[in-house]
């Protein structure tokens, strides 16, 4: 009885989470239409242009030690970063979930 209450609660939570994630996706898609035709470069690149404009004499005094050779390699590294994080989060949730299932069995 109690476990079915917990299950229902989890289901409700899952539903809420799916709706929330859809909202996030929507928030990422809408700008593509609002700002149609823009280049969608990084805000840091835009800032760099602004700095050049404000102070044309400014010379960057240091450059990155290592630069990904292409946009593809850069996106590879960003994907690795996200995958590492997602893996750890998945591991954590999995271990909490299995603990909960096991505790339930012992009862």
């Amino acid at each position, binding site marked *: 009885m109690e476990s079915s209450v917990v299950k229902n609660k989890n289901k409700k939570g899952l539903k809420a989470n799916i709706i*929330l994630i859809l909202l996030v996706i929507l928030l990422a898609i809408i700008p593509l239409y609002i700002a149609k035709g823009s280049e969608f470069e990084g805000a840091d690149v835009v800032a760099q242009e602004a700095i050049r404009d404000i102070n044309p004499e400014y010379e960057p005094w240091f450059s990155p030690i290592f630069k990904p050779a292409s946009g593809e390699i850069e996106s590879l590294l960003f994907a690795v970063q996200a995958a590492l994080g997602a893996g750890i989060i998945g591991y954590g949730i999995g271990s909490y*979930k299995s603990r909960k299932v096991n505790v339930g069995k012992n009862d």
Partner: protein
Amino acid sequence: MSKKMQVAVGLGLMFLFMPIKVSAMHIMEGFLQPGWCIAWGAITIPFVLLGFFSIKKTIDEKPRLKILLAMAGAFAFVLSALKIPSVTGSCSHPTGLAFGAILFGPTAMTVFGVIVLLFQSLLLAHGGLTTLGANAFSMAVVGPFVAYGIYKLVQRLKGPRWLAIFLAATLGDLTSYMVTSIQLSLAFPSEVGGVVASLYRFMGIFAVTQIPLAISEGILTVVIFNVLASYSKEELKDLNLLTSEG
């Protein structure tokens, strides 16, 4: 080690490392004068040290929170890898640090934030080593402190927990980028209009771009809390005692 001692060690090292190269959030490599780089880096060092002590204390006192701590860092890793388009026609990414700041206190997340920034500046040419201090101050110090403060404030006002989490993450994210704008306008005042004119311009670039992303970060932080609330109640209970960081 007492709190006073921790602060003393932090300040001592701050002066020791004053002339060291520092780099910050998403101000690009070389795009901040050496003086500013050093100043922002020096301000950040004590927070990093407090963060180390705070993490060590968490692990020593509640070893079972280790997984959750790793998850807090991992969440920042994932979110800061997501470059999302915004209404201004440019892209930026969330920071993901509010989640951990709510759980473990702001300085613990300073440490994770610096790790993320180091990863991005060394491997991705994103941000930079020289700008690490300034970027760390905006993203890994101000952001988590604002998030933590807002969370506590909404709780005190008896607001619902989801709202506290959402506002903490959204506003923490947004203020990080506002600080970046302030840092750049201090370093690059306009010829006409000075700092204020530059601030207006950089806010338009960073803060406005960040608004939808900050909302996304708020939503995603609520999502991860929902997941934790169903699977790791005990850890969250542990933390209600622990988050009272001085």
